[in-house]
């Protein structure tokens, strides 16, 4: 495994190459509180391109910032910085990484050639609308994951219509018939709404990758 450092504003992001290959990269996005794997997952065995994995801000070997301030949109920008490095990629996201993968597929429909959404930590996120809230100050930790990442990204709002907006953006501009594949068994409200959208398929990770492998740029 080799690791490259990418700068996202004041954060150094760790982008790991788990296996070199030729052709489009497979970009793995981990779940909340996790870090990138050190080996390619077994379902990626047939992927011809490089298999790479990003540590989100506050996770793995990426910077832990002071004072929190995490949002799904900032993690989307983390993933977009990795995408800028790769040029184009197919995405596989776990949990929180699945939500970010969906957002990136909608935000960069021409560079993302399919996004596979899998179960994992942080899949559900927070409520779908305003709730009673508590605000607490957490002690900083020198070791990942950042406690603020765990706290803030376990309660970020995920209205279903916000999630489906990204599906529609992907469908509108990706040129793929089904740019989103849902492999997750658990379907929180945002993901249940995603599954109901046109252009979304449900299947295993391996089956989705077999299709996305053929997708043209």
């Amino acid at each position, binding site marked *: 495994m080799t690791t490259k450092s990418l700068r996202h504003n004041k954060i150094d992001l760790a982008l790991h190459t788990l296996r070199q290959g030729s052709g489009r990269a497979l970009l793995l996005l981990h779940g909340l509180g996790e870090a990138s794997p050190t080996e390619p997952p077994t379902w990626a065995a047939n992927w011809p391109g490089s298999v790479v994995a990003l540590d989100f801000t506050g996770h793995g070997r990426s910077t832990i910032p002071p*004072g*929190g301030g*995490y949002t799904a949109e900032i993690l989307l920008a983390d993933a977009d910085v990795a995408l800028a490095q790769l040029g184009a990629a197919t995405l596989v996201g776990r949990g929180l990484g699945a939500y970010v993968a969906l957002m990136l597929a909608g*935000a960069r429909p021409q560079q993302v050639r399919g996004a596979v959404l899998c179960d994992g930590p942080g899949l559900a996120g927070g409520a779908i*609308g305003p709730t009673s809230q508590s605000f607490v100050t957490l002690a900083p930790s020198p070791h990942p994951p950042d406690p603020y990442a765990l706290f803030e990204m376990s309660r970020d709002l995920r209205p279903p219509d916000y999630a489906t907006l990204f599906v529609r*953006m992907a469908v509108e501009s990706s040129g793929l018939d089904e740019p989103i594949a849902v492999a997750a068994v658990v379907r929180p409200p945002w993901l249940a709404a995603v599954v109901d959208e046109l252009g979304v398929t449900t299947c295993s990770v391996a089956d989705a990758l077999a299709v996305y492998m053929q997708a043209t740029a």
Partner: protein
Amino acid sequence: MRVRPRLPRRRTLGAMLPGEYPGAVAPLRQYQIDVGGLGIALHEWGDEAGQPLFLVHGGFDFSRTYEVFAPKLAAAGWRVVAWDQRGHGDSDHAPLYGWDADIRDAMAVMDVVTQRPAPVIGHSKGGSLMIQLADAQPYRFSHLVNLDGLPSKRRVPDVAEHERTRMVAGEISGWLDHRRRSAGLTRYPGTIEELARRRGRMNPRLSFEWLCHLVTVGAREGPEGWRWKIDASMRFGGFGPWRPEWTVTRLPGLGMPFLGVLASELEEMGWGTLPQHLDSFLPEGGRLELLDGVGHFVHIEQPDLVASMVLDFLGSV
């Protein structure tokens, strides 16, 4: 709800040095506190032994925009405490910015100043932030004043759904492009007048003299000229799951005395919220004032009027 009459605009008279502004008083005390590793700058006017009153600025603003308004409250006996939100004014530039983080920073400031309930006055985004904190931690608030910071449903042109999707897509990809470039970004340098003119695009109703004054307290002078202090990675606008109109759903439940002040003149930085948007959301006993002919920066356009409204609302110290 009462509507205030249209008032004459303030005039600036006489020749002044660049940045000088009549009635502007620099804070008597300025210091930083450490909030989880970030320096947050506090600015105070008035007697240190006075009862604290908090002023909360809006997005892309900073505490010293209160340099005319705050002294009027301090003159009535209040210890007026304002702070620069992370990335703004003299506070540290943070790696991350977020609504919850701003609220936690506010809690840290309040904890340093007092353990007792205090009046809080928030403008624009600062007003919205304080509604959320007042809902979550009402024990911190004796009174809540909101200066044109009551968001209503975002004004979106009446377009077809697929067009709307494209508009949002453009907004998001533009923001991501900015994030890709954000490492090492700095604000453009210029003269005091050039920065004032730039700011004037966001604050078209404020006088050029005032904007020049803002440059001298909200920007730093270096070898290449003046640069705004605000973090260049921050960008006006943005997107996310929060719907602006959700903020006012927290209003009806507030238990502390509430005064809302709305501006009738629509501006880019304002919400354009009118009293009819808030009819059913005012808390019991809450008051709403509409300032006719006044823009989003009500306390800058009409400092005397707004200060007197606030002091009247708070009663004597």
